[in-house]
């Protein structure tokens, strides 16, 4: 099986550790994952803001980059949803039949990480170790657009050492919403404040989710509140092992606060 990682533009530029975690995790599970260098973005920022024409070349780049793979794995419910549900709309708008045909090939092969692990690889225990108190936020697109259901929780429950606590009002949107977070910043923040409050109520040390964009929003609020709760992508917890935990020192040197800018 030829498996490609669609790392997503947000992870590529802002959260490379998530991409590295997916690579480590999949290799540990015996998957020889490839990173097609031609990939960029799924096009969702354009589509969801109404710029369909602008999304056409981006979707074209996506289908070209991932053509020929048996599975495309992405650590984002939102980007998987975009590939599966929005690419066809963009292709139709372009009037380009070849693009529509290519989308029909890549769309059904695109899996969000937890779907790929549970449905394609058939594993729920990925051999992870993470001795921390964790709460899980199901992001809207993974929950409602993809319907990943309980897959992420099943994966987390199998992690050794973890204390998984329920998040109150878990299924309510965090208020990120892509450009909504900027265009309607006040409403977005009002929603995020309630989400952050629910997270704090759990007493968790780590908030985990399958989308770093939502986590950037909730985590940004928790950080501003000095709440003492960090956010982590699902992939990073699933990639953790007793060994990595023992010399885990938080972020890479080049990302650390106050670190030498060498």
């Amino acid at each position, binding site marked *: 099986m030829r498996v490609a990682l669609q*790392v997503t*533009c947000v992870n*590529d*530029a*802002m959260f*490379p550790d998530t991409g*590295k975690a997916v690579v*480590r995790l999949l290799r540990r599970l015996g998957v020889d994952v490839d*990173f097609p260098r031609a990939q*960029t*973005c799924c096009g969702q*920022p*354009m589509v*969801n*803001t*109404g*710029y369909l024409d*602008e*999304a056409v*070349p*981006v979707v074209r*780049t996506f289908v070209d*980059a991932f053509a020929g793979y048996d599975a495309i794995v992405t650590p984002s419910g939102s980007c998987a949803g975009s590939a599966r549900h929005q690419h066809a709309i963009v292709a139709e708008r372009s009037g380009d039949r070849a693009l529509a045909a290519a989308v029909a090939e890549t769309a059904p092969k695109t899996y969000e990480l937890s779907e790929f692990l549970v449905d394609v690889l058939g594993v729920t225990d990925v051999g992870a170790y993470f001795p921390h108190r964790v709460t899980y936020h199901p992001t*809207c*697109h993974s*929950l*409602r*657009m993809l319907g990943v259901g309980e897959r992420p929780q099943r994966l987390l429950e199998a992690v050794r050492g973890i204390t998984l606590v329920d998040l109150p009002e878990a*299924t*309510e*949107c965090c*208020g990120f*919403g892509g*450009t*909504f977070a*900027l*265009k*309607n*910043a*006040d*409403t*977005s*923040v*009002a*929603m995020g404040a309630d989400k952050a409050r629910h997270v704090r109520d759990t007493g968790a040390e780590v908030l985990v989710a399958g989308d770093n964009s939502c986590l*950037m929003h909730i*985590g*940004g609020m928790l*950080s*501003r509140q000095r709440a003492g*709760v960090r956010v982590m992508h699902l992939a990073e917890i699933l990639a953790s092992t007793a060994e990595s935990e023992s010399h885990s020192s*938080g*972020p*890479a040197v*080049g990302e*650390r*606060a*106050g*670190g030498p*800018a060498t």
Partner: protein
Amino acid sequence: MSGGTFVGMPAFPTAAREALGDTQLRSNLAHATRTIRDKRAAVVAEVEDWEDLRLAGAGVKEAALRDLATHLETLEASLVRAGATVHWARDAEEACAIVARLAHAHGVDEVVKVKSMATMEIGLNEALEAEGIAAWETDLAEMIVQLGDDLPSHILVPAIHRNRAEIREIFMRRMGDVGRPAPDDLTDEPVVLAAAARAHLREKFLRAKVAVSGANFAVADTGTLVVVESEGNGRMCLTLPDVLISVVGIEKVVATWSDLDPMLRLLPRSSTGERMNPYTSTWSGVTPGDGPQEVHVVLLDNGRTRALADDVGRQALRCIRCSACLNVCPVYERTGGHAYGSVYPGPIGAILNPLLRGVSDEQTASLPYASSLCGACFEVCPVRIDIPSVLVDQRAAVVDSHRGDRVPKAEAVAMKAAAWAFSDSRRLAWAEKASGLGGRVLRRFGRTTLPGGRAAAGRLPGPGAGWTGARDLPAPPEESFRAWWDRTDGGQNDRGTR
């Protein structure tokens, strides 16, 4: 008595900002939406074949819309056969003029009203007032809104933004101006408030010669109009006066009597969270010696054919005004209905208003963006309107309407630049390198450490301030994933991170 007006409302983000600061509103809405939401969830969970029922409901409305012209002609013929008079109104102005003319013909200076979204949409009360005719709202919540010179903020519960203390105050202050005053010992107990409203309205029911209603459904094959309500006040209006005028949107038509079956099962559970609706009134034209002896039906377009012509958006015409989407919407719950600047607020309003009116004005054009696209609305919609997809499609309509602008918006320029960078991975790699260098500077000057130890960027200027005003932002990492993959040969020779 004049109510407020939505005319001149600012765009959603501005209106929302003000609403978010109204602590009483926030508290009232959070309480009320949660209550209805929980009630709905409980009674929907009881129905084993709920998903099939949703499909059936969507099917009934979709079939009616697919052949709308035929069904409307059948409806007209059935209504006329049953003794009703049918009027056709292209827009709000025509519809209001028809109702005013009929009221004048009967020499009345007041009408009683059944709660009706269509008449709110066309501004009938204000139009009648200009003609010297008082239109009395008799639905309890609509009456509260009217007495308070206020605007409705919810489809089902127009006074949802008010709590009982505020309602008591409105009754004490205003009831006496327009009829029987509230008793001096009025308390804010719901049963006491309802009794005051009952005594106040009874006078109007018994006096009125003309009633105005809408309709939840219009059955084409039998010429039957249906009004679904909870209080019985609607039935008072539908049965006591001599003349009944119903303003009915053309999308309310269903083909047959049996089509009502799924609709009347879906609506109460989705709307009020009840298993069965308390007062369901149906009437087919005139029944001699029983009820109104003169029955008029005004069939209203007012943008509905415009929405019908929209391939993606037409599904919004399936809407049965249950307001389930409002009650689950995290945006609506926090901003309330007034921020949407329309009698149709919430997720359905965010698509219905632009579909009915177009997106040429700034306020309407802001509505499709008043959503985080979380999808909770689609999940609860009894007629399966895919609101998130229509929202995105309406956003495209807004963007397309600006494609000819001589000076493009900053957002359009940014999107074009992003599309350019995202169309070639080499351009993206270059941009990431630049952002990594920027991150190096930000980290050097950064004063904030994110939980977990990563450095935060400082406060951003310009549009970025919308983010960093309330949220910390990680500084971009020095090395992108792509650069790491290249440097380490796909992680094969990763000897520690840089």
